[in-house]
């Protein structure tokens, strides 16, 4: 059922077995999983069913790091959370993402991917994606033909799948409306995580509505599910019993902020008249699977020191009639030479063919390589509290997103290796947009609005904020859901993993309470 914090009497004290803070992908998934469980569940949402500017501005935050999206609007504060503008891309993390890699500091999860596999299978239906067949080579063959029989060891193929995308608020509203044991309170913001005197468990939540009402909520277990920026913000702002913030006894809350750098760092000149190459570029919608093939590095190529990444290809349209880019990306190259060089590259595998004149050489079709990369976990890339305050008087979040030179080096390594593999397999030739190895991070780096790592998972309380069960170290009844618990991020879009982890946490909560 749904209630509205604005419509219940002031100072209402709400009670439940489990209180979940935040009705986004993680919060709604846990509430759904606990529906009909016999446990009373309270799901607390800051916004209502629709976007509201005043509520949205509670997200206002400061940015002191790399240029980044407007933090007021890149996360949404109403029922369904940020899934209300989710792009819908799905991929599970790879096995390597869970491993400790000696060349990547702070890498590795406390468990293997296999442990998450059953939850991934269930998550797949919650996000309404197709069959869980992201790296199934047989199915790949069905869609992209013989391309999958790649020679060499640097490149492999997989799928990225598209969720419709599922707007969790709309899709699961009726189910929660009908629930007997799940109560959703809207327009109610958690103002504080109130710990007991010892500071080792939560006693209650202080709640507030923008209209002025104040309420409280008490539960046996609490789950913080407000996203990778608001989770640490709320913990750091809750200083009544813990001056450094809840769960922050080792100063780790908010550290290790990771994004997925998004780049279009290369172009692929496809081998002329080669259907295999064209198959890599097309989107797929067949047998319940909607998505696109993606390029992936092999485990062997990454070794111990390289970061994960994956890339999709899209046809490049901004070429003139001669196949020359209308907006040159290499101004240092004589533009008169440009077309001749492209012809030369497209003929590199035609040695011994009947000599031809330059003019009749095919120029081919070009694809844009759109790459999503992993970051090195970096304690200096972090969320802290700023000086500004929101309408409740709570300090804003302050983001300092950082990238490291090794990350650029790793991306270049992946691209150059793929360039060799694509040429080796006759699929085309890769051209890096930014050819200078010593260049600083180019302006073309974007982001995915993926906020990860700020309450990272580790069984060692000095290395992580939550343990492998997502319970906050030093707090007996506070758990964290969402991508803020990712200790390493992989390259895959995080929503599918957020949902899988939320399902796992729901199992854990049921065990813990019963």
């Amino acid at each position: 059922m749904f209630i509205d914090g604005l419509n219940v009497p002031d100072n209402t004290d709400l009670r439940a077995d489990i209180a979940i803070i935040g009705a986004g992908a993680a919060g709604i998934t846990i509430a759904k999983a606990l529906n009909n469980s016999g446990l009373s569940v309270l799901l607390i949402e800051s916004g209502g069913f629709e976007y509201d500017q005043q509520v949205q501005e509670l997200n206002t935050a400061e940015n002191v790091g790399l240029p980044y999206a407007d933090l007021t609007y890149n996360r949404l504060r109403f029922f369904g959370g940020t899934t209300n503008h989710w792009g819908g891309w799905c991929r599970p993390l790879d096995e390597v993402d869970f491993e400790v890699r000696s060349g990547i500091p702070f890498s590795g999860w406390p468990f293997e991917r296999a442990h998450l596999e059953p939850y991934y299978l269930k998550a797949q239906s919650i996000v309404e994606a197709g069959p869980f067949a992201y790296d199934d080579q047989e199915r790949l063959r069905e869609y992209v033909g013989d391309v999958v029989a790649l020679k060499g060891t640097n490149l492999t193929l997989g799928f990225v799948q598209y969720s419709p995308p599922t707007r969790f608020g709309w899709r699961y509203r009726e189910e929660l409306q009908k629930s007997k044991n799940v109560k959703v309170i809207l327009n109610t913001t958690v103002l504080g995580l109130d710990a007991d005197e010892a500071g080792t468990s939560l006693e209650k939540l202080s709640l507030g509505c923008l209209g002025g009402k104040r309420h409280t909520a008490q539960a046996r277990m609490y789950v913080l599910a407000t996203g990778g920026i608001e989770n640490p913000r709320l913990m750091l702002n809750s200083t009544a019993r813990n001056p450094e913030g809840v769960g922050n006894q080792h100063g780790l809350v908010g550290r290790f902020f990771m994004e997925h750098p998004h780049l279009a760092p290369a172009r692929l000149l496809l081998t002329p008249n080669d259907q295999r190459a064209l198959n890599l570029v097309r989107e797929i919608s067949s047998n319940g699977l909607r998505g696109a093939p993606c390029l992936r590095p092999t485990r062997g190529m990454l070794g111990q020191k390289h970061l994960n990444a994956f890339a999709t290809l899209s046809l490049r349209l901004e070429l003139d009639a001669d196949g020359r880019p209308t907006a040159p990306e290499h101004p240092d190259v004589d533009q008169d030479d440009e077309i001749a060089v492209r012809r030369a590259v497209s003929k590199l595998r035609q040695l011994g063919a009947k000599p031809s004149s330059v003019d009749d050489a095919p120029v081919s079709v070009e694809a844009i390589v759109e790459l999503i990369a992993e970051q090195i976990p970096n304690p200096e890339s972090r969320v802290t509290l700023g000086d500004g305050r929101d309408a409740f008087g709570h300090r804003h979040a302050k983001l300092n997103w950082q990238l490291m030179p090794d990350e650029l080096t790793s991306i270049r390594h992946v691209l150059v290796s793929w360039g060799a593999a694509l040429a080796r397999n006759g699929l085309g030739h890769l051209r890096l947009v930014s050819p200078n190895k010593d260049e600083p991070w180019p302006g073309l780096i974007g982001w995915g609005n993926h906020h990860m790592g700020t309450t990272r998972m580790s069984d060692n309380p000095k290395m992580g904020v939550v343990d492998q069960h997502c319970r906050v170290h030093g707090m007996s009844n506070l758990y964290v859901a969402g991508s803020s618990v990712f200790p390493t991020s992989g390259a895959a879009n995080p929503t599918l993993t957020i949902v899988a982890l939320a399902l796992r946490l729901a199992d854990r909560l049921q065990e813990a309470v019963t």
Partner: protein
Amino acid sequence: MQSITSRRAFLAAIALGAAGSTYFVRQRYKQQRRIKNARRALASIINGQDYAPLGKGFVRPRGEALTIATLLDDLEAKIGATLDTLNDGDVVSRLMAAIEADLDQGDVVEVDGWVIARTSAVLSALCFQMNV
């Protein structure tokens, strides 16, 4: 006694100089012949104009270090033979094998951003330098 020794040394130096000069002339001639033969061998299997623009891009940032002789050394090391000892078919098959080996082993270079096998780059540079 001293003057006899000096005269002998003087004559020896002249003889050595003449021999050295002959040696260098012979070497130079050999090199020219090698280049001429290589050019002929490459021209019979490819249209050099197709690849020269790429070769120009490879040579440009590397400057004078890339002489025709060093490029030929590199190419012949890659194919494991001197060009003028092979027939056309062998040149093509050895070049293709060398290119594939480069790509398998990641022995690639970047030319104006293009990621290409080192053998392809050297071959293109020779087409440019020798006007194949």
